[in-house]
């Protein structure tokens, strides 16, 4: 007997990895549930433009995520927006997926929890979220028309989002703790050519200050130790990502950065449990690689269910 809460495959996290896994699982005619705690699309939902997904010349990130979801739902994927609170494998081999809105079972679980932007961890950061501290330029940049803003970080996200902020802001300082960028060459070229962007090298933010909203940053040069102050109305923070793998504590092995060890089939050491996308070791952390991971995991999960459960 099965009921509404029993699934063949449960996918946890609706970024590109989870959505691609959902598409493949649904097309394999597996009864599949995709669980998401925030926004479908994952990190790309907050990205203004995706222009490195093959075959898609240029897409709004949120739209691309929605399109992936609609495509998978067309084949029967079910999506639920809720927090997953616990994941266990029972003695009969089925997984129990506990959420804030009920418990589901699944024969196989594909974990695609993705990664979240790191916080700076400096005074003022938590106090000013929504008041000038932002982790999403596409959400918030428009509120800083003709004002001075700062972006922290030196990777693709920092430059991409920083370039987006220049559409509104009068000036964008890019504050980076090193003297060279990690971002892809094409983004570096665009950033250096943008007259509104100014780079502040070898520098970290030590505090975010203001009365009712962000007014200024305290900075420190990491080479000279010199402290300084910079007046800005907003600070956009993109200083790397940490995988959301807390749910897998005690279930699977992880590296020092808390990425899950998997083989080339996205299999963890636990039968029927897969990890794909930003949560796995050695991920290239691209939309296209995450989608590839998700497809691989779903194909393998389909085979696993046939082998382990005989259908």
């Amino acid at each position, binding site marked *: 007997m099965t009921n509404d809460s029993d699934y063949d495959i449960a996918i946890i996290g609706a970024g590109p990895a989870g959505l691609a896994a959902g598409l493949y699982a649904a097309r394999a005619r597996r009864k599949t549930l995709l669980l998401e705690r925030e926004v479908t699309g994952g990190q790309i*939902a907050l990205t203004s433009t995706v222009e490195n997904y093959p075959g898609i010349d240029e897409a709004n990130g*949120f739209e691309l995520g929605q399109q992936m979801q609609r495509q998978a739902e067309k084949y029967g994927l079910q999506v639920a927006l809720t927090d997953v609170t616990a994941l266990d494998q029972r003695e009969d081999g089925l997984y129990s997926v506990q959420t804030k809105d009920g418990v589901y079972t699944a024969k196989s679980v594909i974990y695609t929890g993705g990664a979240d932007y790191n916080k700076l961890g400096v005074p003022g950061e938590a106090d000013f979220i929504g*008041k*000038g501290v932002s982790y999403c330029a596409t959400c918030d940049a428009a509120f800083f028309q003709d004002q001075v803003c700062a972006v922290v970080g030196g990777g693709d996200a920092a430059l991409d989002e920083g370039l987006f902020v220049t559409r509104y802001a009068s000036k964008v300082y890019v504050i980076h703790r090193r003297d060279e960028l990690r971002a892809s060459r094409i983004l570096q070229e665009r950033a250096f050519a943008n007259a509104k962007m100014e780079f502040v090298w070898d520098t970290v933010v030590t505090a975010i200050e203001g009365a009712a909203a962000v007014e200024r940053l305290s900075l420190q040069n990491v080479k000279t130790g010199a402290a300084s102050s910079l007046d800005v109305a907003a600070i956009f923070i993109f200083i790397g990502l940490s995988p959301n793998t807390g749910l897998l504590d005690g279930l699977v092995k992880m590296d020092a950065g808390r990425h899950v060890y998997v083989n080339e089939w996205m299999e963890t050491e636990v039968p029927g449990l897969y990890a794909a996308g930003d949560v796995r070791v050695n991920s290239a952390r691209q939309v296209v690689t995450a989608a590839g991971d998700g497809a691989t995991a779903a194909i393998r999960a389909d085979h696993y269910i046939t082998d382990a459960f005989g259908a």
Partner: protein
Amino acid sequence: MAKPKDVTDSDFEQVVLKADKPVLVDFWAPWCGPCRMVAPVVEELADDYAGKVEFVKLNTDDNPDTAVKYGIRSIPTLLVFKEGESVGQIVGFRPKSDLAARLDAVL
């Protein structure tokens, strides 16, 4: 399903501040992807809280005065008003159960 009605800079005082019931205001803009995720959740809440709480939405592009007055610098933002005062703020998308819990806490 109850569609929250639009409020503007000109009728905000009448509809929200002078309301005899608590009012939840969904600050949004057409360019904001996550705002489009919040909208259907707010519609469901509007059904669940029918008669107890009014639900309205305000387009921050068309109504900058109200957005500035309440210091909105990130959307989606939900503000709950009681007797003309803002008593609760939620920034960013949250699942329905979270929003309901936050709403219950300020009612």
